[in-house]
């Protein structure tokens, strides 16, 4: 019992009190102290595999990125030199960086609300008693299981001018063909549509799960009180779904900065950078221009941006959410 308690302490990372206590107080006696230490080591050993993986693949790369962003890019015989904040200075003067950041903000600001709204609508719909419900759920979920590369290649042909799906459908109504991806006014919107289509089904599953856990008594009580369906949704269902919405929101934000496969396949950031997102630009700088130091600098900005957004979500939104 004693030992397992210490392990629990260790696992919680609460070692500052657990370790010195027996030595400092000296009340536990000589026989207990080594046992506690052993148990403590035992706890840390259990933690070790996970900790090693976390450090190697998460913490070390993040720290190394920050350090690299303060050095110049090594080339051939020329090794990296400390340049301080020069890379950040160059970034502030780089028009493509600002373009990519602006695009990414516009992209996120469209994709996130659209995806969540669509996911919620679909979930509420397929939660009701309608004919062919399993097929509808399957159809909504299908885009999620497709790899983004495949999705992008399919949509590339949807958008192709003339014989693409969209132009053929619009052609029925006599609307002229349009070069969807080749026009700087429509290219980003086309990519937003792909992202919404891809992710909405995935988030629908979470909403559906939350909806099914909701007690039917609530709906019955509301019906007795004479609440309209919209009023019930607005005042009961939606607030109860807020924990799910927070989870979905976190994921949607991450996805809007992380998923760029469709850009690589469909536009390569073109025409003239109108669809360049931040991560795509980082890839270009890092693996096409081989300017690794500048790529590290851009990555630091992306990391800071995501950390800031995550903090905001948990600190501000969390307080307003009612957990059951």
């Amino acid at each position, binding site marked *: 019992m004693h030992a397992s308690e210490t392990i629990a302490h260790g696992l919680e990372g609460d070692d500052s009190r657990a370790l010195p206590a027996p030595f400092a107080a000296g009340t536990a006696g000589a026989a207990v102290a080594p046992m506690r230490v052993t148990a403590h080591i035992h706890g840390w050993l259990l933690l070790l595999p996970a900790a090693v993986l976390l450090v190697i693949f998460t913490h070390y790369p993040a720290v190394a990125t920050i350090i690299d962003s303060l050095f110049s890019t090594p*080339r*051939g*015989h020329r090794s990296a030199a400390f340049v301080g904040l020069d890379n950040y200075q160059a970034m502030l003067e780089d028009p493509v960086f600002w373009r990519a950041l602006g695009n990414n903000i516009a992209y996120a600001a469209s994709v996130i609300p659209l995806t969540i709204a669509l996911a919620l609508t679909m979930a509420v719909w397929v939660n009701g008693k309608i004919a062919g419900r399993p097929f509808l759920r399957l159809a909504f979920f299908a885009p999620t299981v497709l790899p983004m590369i495949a999705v992008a290649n399919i949509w*590339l*042909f949807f958008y*192709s*001018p*003339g*014989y693409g799906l969209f132009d053929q459908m619009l*052609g029925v109504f*006599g609307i*002229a*063909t349009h*070069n969807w*991806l*080749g*026009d*700087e006014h429509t290219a980003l919107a086309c990519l937003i549509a792909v992202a919404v289509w891809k992710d909405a089904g995935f988030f629908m599953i979470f909403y559906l799960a939350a909806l099914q856990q909701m007690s039917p008594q609530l709906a019955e009580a509301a019906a007795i009180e004479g609440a309209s369906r919209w009023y019930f949704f607005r005042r009961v269902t939606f607030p109860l779904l807020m924990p799910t919405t927070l989870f979905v929101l976190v994921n949607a934000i991450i996805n809007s900065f992380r998923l760029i496969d469709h850009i690589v396949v469909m*536009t*390569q950031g*073109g*025409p*003239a*950078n109108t669809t360049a997102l931040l991560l795509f630009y980082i890839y*270009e700088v890092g*693996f*096409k*221009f*081989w*300017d690794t130091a500048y790529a590290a600098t851009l990555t630091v900005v992306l990391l800071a941006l995501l950390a800031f957004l995550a903090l905001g979500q948990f600190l501000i939104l969390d307080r307003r959410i009612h957990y059951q």
Partner: protein
Amino acid sequence: MRHATKQWLIPIVGAVMMVLTAGAMTSGAMAKDIELSFYYPVAVGGPITKIIDGYAADFEKANPGIKINAIYAGTYQDTLVKALTAFKSGEPPDIAVLLSTDMFTLIDEDAIAPFDDLLKTDADKTWAKSFYPAFMENSQTGGKTSDEKTWGIPFQRSTIVMFWNKDAFKAAGLNPDKAPDTWDELVADGGKLTTRDAAGNVSQWAVEIPSTGFPYWLFQGLTTANDVRLMNSAGTQTYFDKPAVIQALQYWVDLSRKDKIQPTGTIEWGTTPKDFFERKTAIMWTSTGNLTNVRANASFPFGVAMLPAHQGRGSPTGGGNFYFFKKMTGDERDAAFKFVKWMTTPERAADWGIATGYVAVRPDAWETPAMKKYVADFPAAAVARDQLKYAVAELSTHENQRVTKALNDGIQAALTGTKTPEQAMKDAQQEAVRILRPYQ
């Protein structure tokens, strides 16, 4: 006590030594076996990997003691990323086929070694001169201080050609066997080839020059015809804002905006062949690498022509070269050199060209019986060869991808109408000058 703790080391040291001795004995016994890693840009599986595997096996049979490990690394871009990442971690490939335009990038990273000191015998020197000069333009450079060196050996090379739909020409009242030969003819024929329905919507465009991915390459098909080069051979200067360059871009933009015979906005490289098969465009500009694809998928008779001329004729070359990475020892380099020579004999160059659609890289390959028979059956294959006398090097400079991106962005901005051709090229040149400043 100290002595005692070390005792457990003895069996371990013994075991390590035994392993080492065994290793030394094995490597001693097979001292002549040289293993070479060979990065090749294609996705695993498919017909191309089979051909390369076949070549490697034949070479190993003819040259016992040399082993070729072909590593299929994906697209050109993927292969470059993998090769350079491996190089930076200290384990570069020995041989790689990478874009000819990656030459400056690879030199700047100090990743590759030139071929010149391997050319010892007269036979080797003749071999090095046996390739089409147009292909060698992207394979040799002097750099700033040293004299000219050969850094790449042409292997799978291509140029841009024009495919036309003979049915569409017939329907428009044009001679189906004659493609437009000049810029003016393209515009004149284009007016007839563009068909519109009652509402004025275009059902067939006359021409598509793709402008995504690498628009600068297709743009060179226009600038070369306008008798202007985009860069110097040292890769340190660009000429994007020369009047002839701006004029070439103006012509391209006008095809869409003034003459209205080409779709507006950028045109997707990947779907252009599909547009051609679907009769959405009567003419397309694309790589000779699409020859086999078009032959298999076009449901109508088609022709292959050189790009139309203006001040002159011309097209850039494209495609991949053999590179030798540094860190190979003397024996390994000799073996690798043997392999590259073996891969580029006239017979093999002809075989490779017929199997893939790439342009056979040396004139004598076209004199082989196999190639002669192929050209007799399929004369279109020779168009690319005949165009080679007008071909120039594909745009390649130091900081290559960054400079080409500046030009690509400018071209796309002009095609979408965000900037005038003049403004777009001035901005691109300014950006290129800034990027290339350290190399002046």
